[in-house]
């Protein structure tokens, strides 16, 4: 009942002219960004956050929701026409999307992809609206010790699961922890890692780090790889008629998979898409048609990767624990607008948080409308020369960062993080754990100190509540399961040798 009241209170806010324009713009930009191979929703949101500084929080968040949903669908356009997934989540769409395009069924594949994406996004937004408030209510019962373990759980999961080499993932987390410590310690007033620089006293702005790590490396890739020179599949102008009824079970199954995978930290849209495609192929009696241009092979991954979008935000909004890079960037956007993610957000700013969740739903519908009428324009985006786009991204990132504090120092810092991020990507070190650690590091440190203050310096307090024990068990599982899997993989090969 409470949820319904909050939704009713937020509804008039999201249908104001500014929010509607922001959602339309965001969705169009999102589809465009997603359609450009090499650019992702994370990058699009990171670059555009500085533009939203002067906007009302809900207007800014409406734009963010549009970019996020739009980019997830946009990724399927080059996957179908060029055999290049525009975003990592579009990888499974290639399997059947490109063969369909080669058979002259590109418009049909794009139509299936659009409808499936819109349905996946809408289901995900409903899941967010229904699951986030009760979870936030539970999270209000958490004490400082529980929050300390929760922050540790968030950092460990991402570091271990996002990298093939846990040492590299954890090193990335350490980088984020150090960046998060730069500046004056809020509790003691001591300067940390400032090296006498006045510019570093107030710490490193998270947007500087986000833009550097997520906008500069794709720009370098665009400049280096010349992705747009790929051959486009032919587009047959006549559209095939399609019966939607057989797609309904595919959408139901794939949406559920997408939502569940979205809630689990570190998995993301690409995992959801591949698993949904696999499951669809396994369960279909005509499974030999998959990989050769089966429309349901496009519907399943597109529905699943879009169903992942809002679901990823469930732990991020309710606990303040982002489970993916894009969720971390969205948390950055919330922080920029003075909104602190976590259960308090639902208590202190219910109109904003429910409004944001509703914009995720509305942009799912907008995506269908914009995608349907703007299909031809978005296909043309693929022809944009990457050698021109790459320097434009740099220019946009530079002016965006400069406009935060009119500081050239921050622009240099952003470029430094950009080069560092590019180097990390070359060395297979994931960048997302660093960003998560910048958000979660201060939360962990503050919670630990508060816990020690309450207990008079006794560490026993950290393991007194049952919530803490559950989270500790989850951390242990995160660390042990990959190790156990690796050992199991080694065992048969040893047997083979014998």
């Amino acid at each position, binding site marked *: 009942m409470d949820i319904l009241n909050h939704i009713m209170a937020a509804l008039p806010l999201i249908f104001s002219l500014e929010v509607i324009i922001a959602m339309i713009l965001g969705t169009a930009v999102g589809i465009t960004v997603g359609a450009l191979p090499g650019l992702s929703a994370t990058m699009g949101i990171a670059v555009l956050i500085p533009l939203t500084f002067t906007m009302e929080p809900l207007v800014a968040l409406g734009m963010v929701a549009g970019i996020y949903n739009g980019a997830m669908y946009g990724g399927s356009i080059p996957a179908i026409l060029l055999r290049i997934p525009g975003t990592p989540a579009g990888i499974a769409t290639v399997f059947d999307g490109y063969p369909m395009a080669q058979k002259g069924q590109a418009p049909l594949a794009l139509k299936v992809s659009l409808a499936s994406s819109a349905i996946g996004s809408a289901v995900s937004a409903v899941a967010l609206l229904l699951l986030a408030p009760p979870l936030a209510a539970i999270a209000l019962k958490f004490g400082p010790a529980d929050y300390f373990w929760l922050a540790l759980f968030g950092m460990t999961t991402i570091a271990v699961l996002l990298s093939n080499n846990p*040492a590299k993932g954890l090193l990335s987390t350490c980088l984020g922890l*150090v960046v998060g410590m730069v500046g004056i310690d809020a509790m003691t007033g*001591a300067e940390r890692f400032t090296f006498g620089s006045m510019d570093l006293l107030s710490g490193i702005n998270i947007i500087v780090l986000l833009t550097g790590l997520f906008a500069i490396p794709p720009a370098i890739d665009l400049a280096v790889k010349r992705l747009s020179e790929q051959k486009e599949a032919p587009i047959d102008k006549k559209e095939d008629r399609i019966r939607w009824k057989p797609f309904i079970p595919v959408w139901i199954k794939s949406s559920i998979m997408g939502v569940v995978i979205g809630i689990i930290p570190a998995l993301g849209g690409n995992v959801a898409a591949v698993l949904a495609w696999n499951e669809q192929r396994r369960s279909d009696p005509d499974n030999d048609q998959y990989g050769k241009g089966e429309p349901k092979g496009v519907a399943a991954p597109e529905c699943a990767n879009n169903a992942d979008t809002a679901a990823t935000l469930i732990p991020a909004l309710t606990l303040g624990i982002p489970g993916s890079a894009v969720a971390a960037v969205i948390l950055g956007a919330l922080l920029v607008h003075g909104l602190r993610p976590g259960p308090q957000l639902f208590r202190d700013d219910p109109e904003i948080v429910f409004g944001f969740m509703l914009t995720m739903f509305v942009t799912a519908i907008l995506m269908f409308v914009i995608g349907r009428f703007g299909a031809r324009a978005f296909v043309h985006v693929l022809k944009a020369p990457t050698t021109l786009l790459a320097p434009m991204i740099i220019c946009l990132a530079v002016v965006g960062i*400069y406009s935060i504090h009119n500081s*050239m120092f921050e622009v240099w810092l952003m470029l430094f993080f950009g080069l560092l991020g590019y*180097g990390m990507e070359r060395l297979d070190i994931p960048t997302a754990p660093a960003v998560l650690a910048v958000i979660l590091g201060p939360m962990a440190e503050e919670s630990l100190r508060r816990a020690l203050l309450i207990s008079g310096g006794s560490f026993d307090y950290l393991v007194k509540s049952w919530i803490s024990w559950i989270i500790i068990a989850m951390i242990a599982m995160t660390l042990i399961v990959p190790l156990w899997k690796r050992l199991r993989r080694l065992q048969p090969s040893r047997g083979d040798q014998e």
Partner: protein
Amino acid sequence: MPRPLIELVCALLVGGLCIAGFVEATNYTGPSGYLPKAVTVFALLLSLIWALQSALSLQKRKKEASQEPMSLARTALFMGSSLAYVVAIPFIGYFTATLVFIPAVASTLGYRKLRILLGAPLVFVIALYILFSLVLQVQLPEELLLQLVGIR
């Protein structure tokens, strides 16, 4: 250079930075020093593990294809021109630097359609000028181009 060797050098470099970070962290007293010290020591251990892994794979695989020289040159060119662009902004202004940077980089990277090469950056700069200078009223560094035209 083989990939494991690059990784080994990077791991040792990171290890060195961790030691420097730990030395710096020893200056922080009380609760302010706990996390910096713990993080730098943990990162040092991780960098040593990484170095060991790289050294082992260096022994296993002696020959491995390195990055194409052409792609390295393009990366260096793009990074170098981006740094030069940021250096130029305080002297000639953001929009003037942008108007030079985009076509210069695109043409160096091999883009040849002259009309788009000159037209697209102009439209882009006008859009940015409207958005940042007129709508958001961001105070950007003095513009050489606008001074020459006599607007500022």
